[in-house]
């Protein structure tokens, strides 16, 4: 317990969390600070490029084993199953309509890549190594939850899924860049890394600070717009659901036999909620659902929760039960 708290305190005072807090504060104080859309998009491309490539190089260095396939499958199952749990929980503790609840649920099966990156940083500064292929697992977990969400409303005749949408979901830019960079990292290995290391390794933390500043600004502005959503039920959901997800993630990790680092990352993936891929898919397939509900919960509640308290908590949980 002591440890969790000191870890959490240390995490709260890391530059990335502080820049996120700065962003939220600036937004709430109605400062006009903004990161231009193109710059924010550029930074997020950089982050995907860097973590994909690093993951691939790690796989190339350490080789792969059976756990890769199992972890990918675990990720897909988690992404597919979590929305059903989330939906049940939401219907129980909130007054959200079926449609809104299904849309929210879809977000919690999918993942937040920035939360994943932040967790990677925490692991790194704690000197914990994780399986390089976890970024591939992240990519694999983006989409299945969307299908679950649409299943959840299909009985009501809502939710339109067509070929174009499926292609859009599976080939969305983030997934393609992440997976593509992963394979290129894998193919080019240490030699490739030597060439582009100066761009993707050392400046990474600094760039992440800027990105979290932007996330803070966006989350803060979203909170102001969506404060109507923040009744007790949804609020509790937004902090309880990630913990539930992380427990399931931990269970899978133990079964598969992931390393401590890998276990934490799978927990974080299960715990985090999407705010890019799933909202876009929902706008197309389920336009009746209210975006401010799912965006406020995912980005305004769950993302900050994971970033500040969640990650240290999951690390503590995993450390407690993990063999070593």
């Amino acid at each position, binding site marked *: 317990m002591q440890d969790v708290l000191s870890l959490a305190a240390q995490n709260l005072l890391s530059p990335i969390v502080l820049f996120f807090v700065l962003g939220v504060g600036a937004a709430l104080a109605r400062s006009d600070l*903004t*990161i*231009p*859309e193109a710059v*924010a*998009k550029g930074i997020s491309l950089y982050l995907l490029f860097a973590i994909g490539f690093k993951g691939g190089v790690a796989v190339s260095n350490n080789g792969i084993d059976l756990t890769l396939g199992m972890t990918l499958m675990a990720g897909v199952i988690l992404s597919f199953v979590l929305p059903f749990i989330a939906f049940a929980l939401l219907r129980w503790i909130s007054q959200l309509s079926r449609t809104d609840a299904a849309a929210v649920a879809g977000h919690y099966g999918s993942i937040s890549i920035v939360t994943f990156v932040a967790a990677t940083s925490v692991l790194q500064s704690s000197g914990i190594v994780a399986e390089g292929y976890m970024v591939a697992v992240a990519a694999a977990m983006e989409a299945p939850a969307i299908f679950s969400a649409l299943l959840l409303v299909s009985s009501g005749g809502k939710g339109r899924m067509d070929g*174009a949408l499926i292609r859009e979901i599976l080939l969305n830019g983030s997934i393609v860049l992440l997976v593509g960079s992963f394979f290129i990292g894998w193919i080019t290995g240490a030699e490739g890394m030597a060439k582009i290391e100066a761009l993707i390794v050392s400046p990474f933390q600094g760039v992440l600070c800027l990105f979290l500043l932007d996330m803070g*600004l*966006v*989350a803060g*502005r*979203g909170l102001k*717009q969506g404060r109507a959503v923040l009744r007790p039920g949804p609020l509790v959901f937004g902090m309880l659901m990630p913990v539930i997800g992380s427990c399931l993630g931990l269970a899978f990790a133990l079964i598969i036999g992931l390393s401590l680092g890998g276990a934490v990352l799978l927990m974080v993936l299960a715990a985090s909620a999407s*705010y*890019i891929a799933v*909202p*876009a898919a929902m*706008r*197309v397939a389920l*336009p*009746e659902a209210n*975006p*401010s509900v799912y*965006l406020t919960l995912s*980005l305004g509640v769950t993302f900050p929760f994971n970033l500040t308290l969640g990650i240290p908590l999951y690390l503590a949980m995993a450390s407690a039960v993990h063999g070593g």
Partner: protein
Amino acid sequence: MEKHDAKRVAIIIEAIMESRLRQALEGAGVTGFSVLPVLGGSGRSGSWSRDDTVSRGGGMVQVICIIRPEKLDRMLEAAFEVVDRHIGVVTISDCQVLRADRF
């Protein structure tokens, strides 16, 4: 300078629906249109601004289409198909156009 009567249809729609609208227009034989960026706005579904949208693809665009009057209805039906369940605004106004041979 010779001018010809035409209709100007402006559709404000979510960016994510743009490709579907393009396809519907092309399907309806509408071969000319332009897409303009929208920075923000306000409507029944609240107010938004490009810099605040969480998923940065979350903004809207304006599709402008200059069209012969006789083609208007077919075009509106095709567009309506796409816009129907979604937020957005469709307006039609009169205009004149130079170089009508190009339409």
